[in-house]
């Protein structure tokens, strides 16, 4: 299994928001990828964006600047 370490996890209210976020990050060269949402955050289905904690400032800036629709940001061991 993948090594567990501290990661930045960004959640979304809908799959549409997750897709918009992925498209934005790909177009703007921002790091990370979509994974199944960790159950420590929420039970159920859905996708989350996983990146390194170091990437947080750049992602947060983009979220602010372009009003990207995200639910919440977490730093958890995953």
């Amino acid at each position, binding site marked *: 299994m993948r090594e567990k370490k501290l990661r930045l996890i960004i959640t979304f209210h809908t799959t549409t928001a997750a897709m918009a976020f992925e498209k934005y990050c790909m177009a703007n060269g921002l790091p990370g990828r979509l994974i199944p949402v960790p159950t420590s955050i929420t*039970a*159920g289905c859905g996708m989350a964006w996983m990146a390194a904690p170091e990437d947080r400032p750049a992602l947060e800036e983009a979220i602010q600047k372009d009003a990207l629709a995200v639910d919440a940001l977490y730093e958890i061991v995953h």
Partner: protein
Amino acid sequence: MIYLDNAATTYHKPQSVIDAVVEAMQGMGNSSRGSHSGALKAARTVYDARCKAAALFGCSDPSRVVFTSNSTEALNIALSGLFAPGDHVISTDLEHNSVLRPLYRLQAEEGVLLDFVRADRQGCVDYDDFEVLIRPETKAVVCNHASNLTGNMLDLDQIGSICRKHGLLLVVDASQTAGCIPIDVEKTGISVLCFTGHKGLYGPQGTGGMCIAEGVEIRPFKVGGSGVQSFSKTQPAQYPTRLEAGTLNGHGLAGLSAAFDFIAETGVEAIHAKEIALMRRFYDGVKDIPGVKVYGDFSTDDRAAIVALNIRDYESGEVSDELSENYGIATRPGAHCAPRMHEALGTAEQGAVRFSFSYFNTEAEVDIAIDAIREIARL
């Protein structure tokens, strides 16, 4: 990619289905909108698909086959159009949210009364529980044919005879079984069968439908253009037009029609036998691996070709992600839109990793998946 998420949608479609959609998109009018050659081609295509659906599901009147965009829409049409305040409905823990949420909404907004037949830790029900829950206001049993989480099947013959005995409607969600398990609506006494086109029928997404028994009156969920009786202020009362306001997915239904041919030519029994053999090979390969826990009842082959499992206390999402990233194997983790089933199995927190097999999977793919599970389970 090794695609083992066929319970979500089948990935590999017969070439004849692909060809039929392409051919339809190269030129097709609107069914029931005019009588020029393009419109007639559409009307004939849709009617052929109706006849084939009726034949597959043992429905003697093709006009009682209604097309919808998927089984969720079929279930919403059926459930919103059958019940009145004070009616009592019996459902089960095996249900998908496409049954649960319409029922919960009827309960909250329309005063429909609800009870559930509980499933045990293996995901099985006790059929006596249906009769125990029946009361004077009971109008219907609404149930899954097979759980999309465990693959366990409900015995519709038993439930059908209980419904007959007590004069109840029987609404069945055949999302996981249409095309891979024989269904005979008239023999079984199914009032409304809801199916989706893109799973075991190997048709396009955006297709599905319902078979409605003689005497079952469903209030239309949507009303509008029908191409007939245009000066009437109300939706035509006759099926299927009654429930099919708006242009149908003619291009998709051309594909679904070819998919019905594929099912008829291949044979439902042959499809089931092949899928179950793949499922058994996988089940036998993983069930004794230390740390692996499989859910569901594998004592019979009367089930859908699904194996849900967990490895140790690993999050199902992490295991599924590992399978996808490092082995190229597509599975579905999490809740599978089946909250009550997960609660019954005790997997509400962990979720489960679901492997689901199709007629187009191979033994070699199954063996790779078994090896992957063995590696991940090794501490």
